[in-house]
């Protein structure tokens, strides 16, 4: 990260706090045993990944599809395929369970949000707000995504192999967002934790008002937002990025070391420790 400048505000007594950059994601001990060490949600279903189920969504509503997913998990089915999702909204949400879920087709808005645990693959594209508030697991989209992709995600990996719209990772609080193509304006707006890797171009106001977290960009950046600044890449994070991209069959166009790293400059007013009355004096 670049050196913070000593601003007028700091000379006037404002204090800039350096945050640790640690995510809120819980990292489990690999030696733990799932059931005995209780990192399953209460009421989570015991599923077998070798047991397969299928739902044809052509005439079903989101509620019916989501209920049928739950019913299959109740029967111990751990691998479910949804056929003909038809770009309908709110499919595959609120899943707090281990599960392999495949959508053969495209999803509409709010797909795969509020999840913690499932590994989801979507062979088509997704509409706005895919993976919103996701807490864990993976969501991999083979084609394009809409705007507010991964809004407020807290954990897990959310991967779109194509382009996504604007405001990607808005209010992101953890986890990783990976975009194989381009992202639109205001991506990383008010980002608080986590990492975002954009392999293509990024629109204007990238990382506007971000508090923390890191954005890596492979292509051109149309413009940085308020308080977003360029940081320095370390060898460790290059290795992490390469490993992460490899997991999803992606590659940085000119190698991870040539990605542009964007972090919070932490010069905004909310980083000071002044009381409201003191602020009035300074301002």
């Amino acid at each position, binding site marked *: 990260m670049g050196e913070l400048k000593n601003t007028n505000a700091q000379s006037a007594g404002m204090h800039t706090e350096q945050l640790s950059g640690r995510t809120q994601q819980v990292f489990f001990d690999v030696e733990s045993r799932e059931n005995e060490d209780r990192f399953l949600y209460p009421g989570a279903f015991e599923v077998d990944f070798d047991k397969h189920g299928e739902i044809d969504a052509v005439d079903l509503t989101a509620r019916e599809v989501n209920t049928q997913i739950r019913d299959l998990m109740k029967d111990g089915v751990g691998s479910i395929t949804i056929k003909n999702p*038809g*770009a*309908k*909204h709110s499919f595959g949400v609120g899943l707090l369970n281990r599960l392999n879920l495949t959508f053969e*087709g*495209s999803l*509409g*808005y709010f797909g795969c949000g509020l999840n913690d645990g499932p590994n989801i693959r979507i*062979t*088509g*594209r997704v*509409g*706005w707000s895919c993976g919103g508030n996701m807490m864990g697991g993976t969501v991999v989209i083979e*084609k*394009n995504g*809409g*705007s507010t992709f991964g809004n407020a995600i807290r954990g897990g990996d959310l991967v779109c192999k*194509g*382009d*996504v*719209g*604007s*405001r990607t990772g808005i209010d992101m609080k953890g986890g990783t967002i990976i975009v194989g193509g*381009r992202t*639109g*304006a*205001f991506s990383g707006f008010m980002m608080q934790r986590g990492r975002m890797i954009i392999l293509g171009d990024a*629109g*204007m106001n990238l990382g506007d008002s971000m508090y923390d977290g890191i954005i890596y960009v492979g292509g051109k950046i149309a413009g940085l937002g308020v308080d977003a600044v360029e940081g320095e890449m370390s060898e460790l994070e290059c290795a992490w990025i390469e490993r992460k991209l490899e997991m999803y069959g992606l590659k940085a166009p000119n190698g991870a070391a040539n990605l542009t790293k964007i972090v919070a400059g932490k010069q905004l007013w909310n980083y000071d420790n002044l009381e409201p009355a003191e602020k009035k004096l300074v301002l």
Partner: protein
Amino acid sequence: MCGIAGLIHRGKRSDIGSELSSMLQSLKHRGPDSTGFALYGMPEEGELVMRFKVAEQEDMQRGFKIHDEVKERRALVDQRMLEMGVNKKEEEQVTEYAYRYRFSFDGDIKRLTDYIEDIEGAEILSVGHALELVKDLGDADTVSQQYGLTAFQGTHAIGHTRMATESDVDIRSAHPYWAYPFNDVSVVHNGQLTNYWMFRRAMERRGHRFISNCDSELIAVYLADRMDLGDDLEAAMVRSVDELDGVFTYVVATADRLGMAKDVMAAKPMVLYESDDFVALASEEVAIRSVFPHEIDTYDPYEGEVKVWES
């Protein structure tokens, strides 16, 4: 929140009435108050089509006299058209208060429309060689059935499902808007303009009339005015993204073109499907899927983006 949709067939005509109707029906959840269609049919040489109404749908529930008044208003429209030298070739009463006239006319369209709209309750929805604009209360299936749109053939169309927010639930405030008095220009819009009154006053000073207080009408008049000043459609749209303030995604159609523009914040949705012979765009992909049920590749246009396609 409103839903908008558009489609264009390149180099051929198709059942655009039924196609747009199913697209708009699948966007019903975005706005159930009213539905509107701007359909571009196959123009006859030297002929114009005018769609107009002489009352609001809700007016028809107000007493027994309205039924006679509607007839009187229509008779007055006929009389004034005759006075202006209109050569009427076909007339159709679509509902008790809405009509479709086909005619030839060599005079000033603005003078003609002003003279007709001077009649109480009369409002011209569209005039054009190709454009036919239909809008009414209810969802797409209701309006399409009421106006017999399923058999409508043409090259391109735009439509709107309205969630009334800042103006009343009536036909006057429903989209699309015809860009009075310019033939064949129509607009649908999802969003909100924050410098509406500033531009409206400027347009009014230039002699344009507004039939509603809906900001979407301004976009239609603004674009037509820019084209009247010499801009082509794309240049007018690029300028609009710069000059109009607010959050918006709009779709515009002319006699042979379809265009879309998104504001620089990209706050309002739009999904696009584009092939060699067909383009469809809508607020949600589910609308495009209603005419293309199989898997297709779609994408979101970006902030500040303007696109124009030719039929």
